[in-house]
């Protein structure tokens, strides 16, 4: 038998037999997660299926993050459905303000390398950062996981993406992630897994790996698995279980020259419309947003603070910042980052997904230009179809906030 990819290894363990790409299989699921966008429908479907208690309440997670705190009574009622379900069944609830689901699952040690994790949110692929086969599904699929502890799937073929060289100062994990989406395209990994590896990844922290795996779905990937070379976790793990065999078979192999990479920006309305920042220098900006499951972690706030230290946001520009979790917010409060950003004119929003997905706070006006650290810039994504959203790294967003237009952060420091 040929060697296995990471997806084949993990799924074989969960199928209880060796499985290879293109095979249909039923697997045991380790954990399930849903947000306030998807949980109410999932709970309804679960009950209609005849479910009373999830197969494993300790590993069933409900996170109130998409419209949090509730902006109106309709959504308050949906949040109550989640609280009630948690009380009744013992499923684990993260309530208003605790943070963004994907940040919480990793920060709170809810997912581990080699696990099969299903989340009713497309960015569940983020946990590929630590070698979990993690994928997004809809509410009814998640209800079925709660009912049976299983799901069915087709074992994906795998694309191998190697990022050679070390990225240069001023270039961030987000730039790599955007370059990757630009290279493979919006549907470039549909139905497939992507293994991401190479010298550029080795020195990267878990936070940075999360930024990269997070954008896997922007290429349509079923899972985005970062190789474990250089991965540091606060517990022991078996790296061989989340590494491919040397003779694993790939459907496609690609490389990106990390050493040559410039800061990247994706133009509206497509995450794969990625260009070097140089093409967009001078683009006027109305709103700058730093946060989300891509770039709301402490190192992202630090990157922004380095740019904004002692400066003010340009007149007419609104800078919004949302820490990915309460823990991140507290750390930023303790180390002075919060003060630096606030002194520069930043408005802090609750930890959550609201602005990114257009459900709560920070909706841009007609014709306004937003630079955001998020992962999506579809038409209407931030709640107004007449706004334009550019995707970039925290440094590029912070620099744009200071300059009032897109600038290379390196030029700003001069």
């Amino acid at each position: 038998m040929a060697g296995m990819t990471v997806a084949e290894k993990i799924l074989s363990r969960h199928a209880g037999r060796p499985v290879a790409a293109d095979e249909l299989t039923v697997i045991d699921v380790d954990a399930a997660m849903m947000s306030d966008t998807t949980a109410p429908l999932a709970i309804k479907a679960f009950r209609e299926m005849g479910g009373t208690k999830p197969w494993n309440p300790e590993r069933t997670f409900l996170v109130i993050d998409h419209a949090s705190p509730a902006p109106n009574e309709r959504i308050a009622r949906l949040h109550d459905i989640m609280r009630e379900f948690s009380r009744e069944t013992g499923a684990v609830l993260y309530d208003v303000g605790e943070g963004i689901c994907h940040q919480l699952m990793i920060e709170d040690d809810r997912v581990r390398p080699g696990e099969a994790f299903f989340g009713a949110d497309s960015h569940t692929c983020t946990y590929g950062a630590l070698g979990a086969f993690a994928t997004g599904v809809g509410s009814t699929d998640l209800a079925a996981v709660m009912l049976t502890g299983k799901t069915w799937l087709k074992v994906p073929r795998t694309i191998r993406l190697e990022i050679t060289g070390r990225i240069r100062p001023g270039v961030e994990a987000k730039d790599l992630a955007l370059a990757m989406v630009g290279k493979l395209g919006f549907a470039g990994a549909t139905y497939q897994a992507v293994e991401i590896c190479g010298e550029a990844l080795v020195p990267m922290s878990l936070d940075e790996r999360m930024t990269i795996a997070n954008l896997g779905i922007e290429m349509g990937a079923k899972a985005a698995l970062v190789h474990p070379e250089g991965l540091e976790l606060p517990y022991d793990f078996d790296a061989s279980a989340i590494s491919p065999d040397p003779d694993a078979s790939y459907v496609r192999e690609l490389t990106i020259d990390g050493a040559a990479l410039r800061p990247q920006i994706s133009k509206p309305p497509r995450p794969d419309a990625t260009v070097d920042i140089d093409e967009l220098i001078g683009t006027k900006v109305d709103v700058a947003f730093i946060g989300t499951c891509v770039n709301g972690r402490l190192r992202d706030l630090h990157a922004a603070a380095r740019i904004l230290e002692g400066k003010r946001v340009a007149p007419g520009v609104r800078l919004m910042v949302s820490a990915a979790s309460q823990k991140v917010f507290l750390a930023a409060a303790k180390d002075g980052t919060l003060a630096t950003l606030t002194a520069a004119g930043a408005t802090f929003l609750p930890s959550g997904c609201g602005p990114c997905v257009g459900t709560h706070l920070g909706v841009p006006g007609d014709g306004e230009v937003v630079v955001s650290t998020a992962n999506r810039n579809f038409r209407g994504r931030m709640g107004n179809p007449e706004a334009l959203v550019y995707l970039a790294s925290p440094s590029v967003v912070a620099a744009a906030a200071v300059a009032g237009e897109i600038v290379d952060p390196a030029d700003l420091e001069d």
Partner: protein
Amino acid sequence: MESRFTGRAHVYGDDIDTDRIIAGKYTKTLNLQDLADHVLEDLDIDFRSKLTKGDVLVAGTNFGCGSSREQAPLALKVAGVSAVVAKYFARIFFRNAINIGLPVLEVPDLEADSGDEVEIDLKAGVVKNLTKHTEYRASAMPQVMIDILDQGGLVAYLKKNGTYDASAL
């Protein structure tokens, strides 16, 4: 579920994301009619007024990319769309549509214009453009998806079967 039906085509392009099928600001509800009222709003503001119950949505590649929101196929279904035919679908949308009982057919070479009369035979996996007198074969689906759709969705399928049967894939 009725396995053979006809409807009028509404044709759109490639890469239609779930945000344009139903914007995030409308997804937080259990009132499915609310979803239907805003379906495809950011793609075509006139879609709702042009839609007649039973019409067929025809799209290009990567239909339903982006968010995992099941509200997207639900909005289409409740609004009265009888099926979606696309060159190919984004993975999560495809599963969601089957799970909620909205027929989806992958037809890589379909040619249709808005207003064409389209006949769909789910059992045979055949799409006919009655206006242009052309016939297309849809890509085969795994048996488990055919069974789920046949029962009207995953809720009914699991109520009947209790769990997934690996031998029935």
